[in-house]
């Protein structure tokens, strides 16, 4: 399991990385944490001709609050994001989700942006990005653009990024209302495995306990993280009672397109993702009322 030969360069800046990408053509790849790319290369399922290492670029790392958004630079280590008080205060849903990503050692290398670019349908960070309508910033030699989470995930393992683009920043909207709660639930075979099915939810209640804002998305049961618009609509304006949640989630099976694999068939994912959604919404409600 040795990678096919390739050239390697370390980029000192985002612009240098982008220039190198533009010059090298489609066979070049950026490497951030490498926790997915390196195994794929070892198995020769990925064989870039050039690896452009963006790990050392200072401007790609950092966590801050930028107005109404939590701003995470793309190369921020998952471990740093998980340990960050800024993330926990601004976006505790992400903190919770990060605790499910791999394990200590892979989080020490793996980056927040890398997980998004990889776009595994079961991955936790893309699910949170989709749930909260995060906004991605991408740069290329030609310039910079932003991409909404709704447009970012094209298909399993495929994003809207062009081959010559580098994801630089992710902005997660901050919900500032006090009565906001979140929930993240996933089912995996072993503790650190990819989710067979996952759901994330964030809800705000008004003082009377009525849900005024609810975002729910699922992962692992569709090619991309999928927002459950009909569920959000059905539950907004309710008290998020168990019965209401159960009723609203009854039709989830029709909203997802699960794939089967060696770990779980499509029917399993279809059934279980509903349960995950119910649990995530209930957790969000409980968090909002506590």
């Amino acid at each position, binding site marked *: *399991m*040795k*990678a*096919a*030969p390739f050239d390697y360069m370390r980029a000192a800046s985002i612009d240098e990385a982008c220039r190198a990408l533009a010059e090298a053509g489609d066979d070049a790849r950026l490497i951030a944490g490498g926790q997915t790319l390196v195994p794929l290369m070892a*198995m*020769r399922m990925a064989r870039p001709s050039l690896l452009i290492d963006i790990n050392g670029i200072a401007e790609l790392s950092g966590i801050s609050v930028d107005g109404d958004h939590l701003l995470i630079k793309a190369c921020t280590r998952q471990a740093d994001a998980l340990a960050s008080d800024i993330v926990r205060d601004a976006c505790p849903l992400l903190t919770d989700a990060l605790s499910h990503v791999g394990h200590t050692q892979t989080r020490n290398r793996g980056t927040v942006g890398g997980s998004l670019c990889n776009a595994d349908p079961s991955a936790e960070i893309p699910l949170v990005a989709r749930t909260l309508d995060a906004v991605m910033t991408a740069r290329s030699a030609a310039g910079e653009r932003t991409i909404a989470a709704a447009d970012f995930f094209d298909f399993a393992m495929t994003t809207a990024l062009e081959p010559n683009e580098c994801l630089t920043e992710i902005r997660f909207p901050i919900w500032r209302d006090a009565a906001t709660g979140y929930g993240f639930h996933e*089912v995996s*075979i*072993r*503790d*650190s*495995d990819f989710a*067979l099915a996952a759901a994330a939810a964030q809800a705000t209640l008004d003082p009377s306990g009525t849900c005024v804002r609810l975002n729910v998305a699922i992962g692992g049961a569709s090619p991309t993280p999928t927002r459950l618009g009909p569920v959000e609509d059905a539950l907004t304006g309710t008290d998020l009672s168990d019965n209401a949640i159960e009723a609203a989630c009854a039709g989830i099976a029709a909203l997802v397109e699960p794939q089967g694999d*060696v*770990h*779980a*068939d499509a*029917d*399993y994912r279809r*059934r*279980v993702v509903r*349960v995950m959604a119910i649990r995530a919404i209930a957790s969000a409600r409980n968090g909002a009322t506590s």
Partner: protein
Amino acid sequence: MDGDFKFVGKKRRVKEDRRFVTGRGRYAADLRLPGMLHVAMVSSPYACAEIRSVDAGAALAMPGVRYVLTGDELFDHINPLLSGLDLPNVKRVPLARGRARYAGEWVCAVVAESRAIAEDAAELVEIDYGMLDYVIDPEEAIEPEAPLVHPEHGSNVLFDKTWTWGNVDGDFAASAHSVKYRARWSRCSTIPIETFAVTASWDPGREVLDVWASIQMPKYPEQIARGLRMPVNAVNVHFDIDVGGSYGLKRGIRQTIIVGYLSRKLRAPVRFIEDRLENLAGGEMHGPDRIFDIEMAYDDDATIRSIRIHATDDAGCYPGRAPLQLGKPVSAIVGPYRIASAQYRAMSVTTNKTSQEAVRGFGQAPTNFAIETGIDRIARALKLDRDEVRRRNLVRADEFPWRIPSGSEYDSGDYHTVLDKVMKAAGWDDLLAKRDALRAEGKLAGLGLSTCLEPSGGNSSFEPLFNPKNDTTTWMEACLIKVDMLGGVTATINTSTSGQGHETLVSVAVGETLGIDPDRIRAIHAESLDALPSNSPVGSRMAIMLGGAAAGAAKKIKQKAMEIAAHNFQLPVDRLVYDGGDVHVEGNPDRRMTWLEIVDIAHRRYHDMPLGSEPGLQANFTWEVPTGGALPAEDGTVQMYPCYAFEAHIPLVAIDRDTGQVEILDYYIGHDCGTVINPDIVRGMTLGGIAHGIGAALYEKFEYDRETGQLMAGSFMDYLLPSSHEVPPVEIVKHSTPSPLTEFGQKGSGESGYLGAPAGIASAVNDALEPLGLHLDTLPMRVRDIEKLINGREQ
């Protein structure tokens, strides 16, 4: 009993561990030789295909590439590998020849100056394949129209024989009830973290092939020599290589033949370290894959009178020793129970899957699971407690030695006491209350119980039983002890070690016998050219056999020391007392000859030696397995395995009814392997065995796609090993019923835990499912299987 010993059974640090905690273990992959070449395999992408041609031109043209070996070339220069069964028309070969018979089978070996280059070149070897029909499912394989895996053999059935021991039909007719069920043990194995690694180096000056390998296999040097058509005394296996786990599996004879051939051909050291993809698909490290159809006959009082077992085992493609894994369970075919008669149909089937290899327990863990499934069913049918049904059928302590219908005699045991002890320690009633409290909260919870045997000592009489042409009845182990001129004691181990702590075992056995602190004794691994016979650490035999051989050699040393002292005291030996190396006159401890004086006489002062005696102080002892040495009788009864260890498992599980996830909340095991030589080693083996059992019960399966014939679990992303999150803390409740057949009363423990854990967890899961009227008798019980059983029908 343990208290009678000075060193046996006492807490003692494990000698081997010091090098492991400092990163100084010496594994096969750590070896560096000048000019060493590296191998990568070209694997068949097809489940079955004719190999029409191989074009290695582009590969050979790459800089750094030295050779591309094909199956045809290799076949012309070697003997086919040994098979456990009498199958003259099934040729087991290291590289596919003419036909690739499973996806992932190695077709060519590419040799290059680095492993990376070898992989680059492997991609360039062009093979013209003609796809052929294949069969993946063992029950489909025995249908008349099934594609033949080995057309020359004429059938996909490799072995099919039925033994009837006792009056099975009569016992069934006389019983009030019977239960009939199918239990399925899926293809999994105890896959180690180190893959198989081997380096061979032909020395044309000495005319010796040196081999360093991560091996655990009987008669490895002999098999290399036979395969390569060399004298055995031209092969030197370095048994001092640390093996990174094996649990039965590390039997890389194909790999060794390939590098051995290449090293002689290319006149260079050649190394092959399987990468994980090669290992899981082509390394032939898959374990038993077994369907059990079982009937048990029993009375109203739960007395089980008879059992019929039909085991169909999928050996995969090439039957090495794998089919014999149907044979070992004959040694405990009725479990720990007083079942009067038994019928056993053992059927080995070949399919287009990777070959099965020996796995911890050699077929006993699946059989124990299958038998225990029936015991629980009888309890359910009679509305009796599961422990009560067992109590009524377990062999009683005063009945040993107990002969079972298939001919083996269980040496000793106290099953009822062990069961009582573990149930008491676990708080069985409290666990039931905890289970019921969980159920009251609406959860699924279940308490499991299994009571199983670990046959140990490696009296492998299944070999002649399964192959009458094989009249092997010798399963020996040896030890050479040398006392050097300054009194130091060095003892040999004549095989490699894969974590069992043999150096510690030998030094304790020798130290106990000689009365010398084991920390002062050195145990070394011989090279095969100067090694005494060994049958390697298989069949849970080393505590018994190597321990016995070491003690036997030490006794000879002790005897000789006594004789030297007797000569110098001018007294008969029976007037002397051996005292920790020193010898003194009985009743007069001051009239003493020290160990150093005796050693000095032996090495330097022949004039003080008894007349005509052998100079020096060294001895070897080779021991045949107790109860070994007999061929099977006409009726198929045979004594296998001298010693029988017992274990009783009690796990409590909770199941998430929506997701099928199983959480093990509590785990207790009662364990009796007789006298324990090193408590930490036995404890570790038991805990590790349980972890293997948890994997087999809940997570691990070499899943194949029936349509494409492809292995779907070819990496650790898909073949799921339990981590620290999945293996719970376990409490072990010890008991010791010494074996009357062994030096210190020890029995085997190398397979402990694994032999009963899958049955115990299955019992717990089924207890949890019982309120829903459901049961599951297929392992592994994966989340999706459990969830589907609970919720799948609603769809």
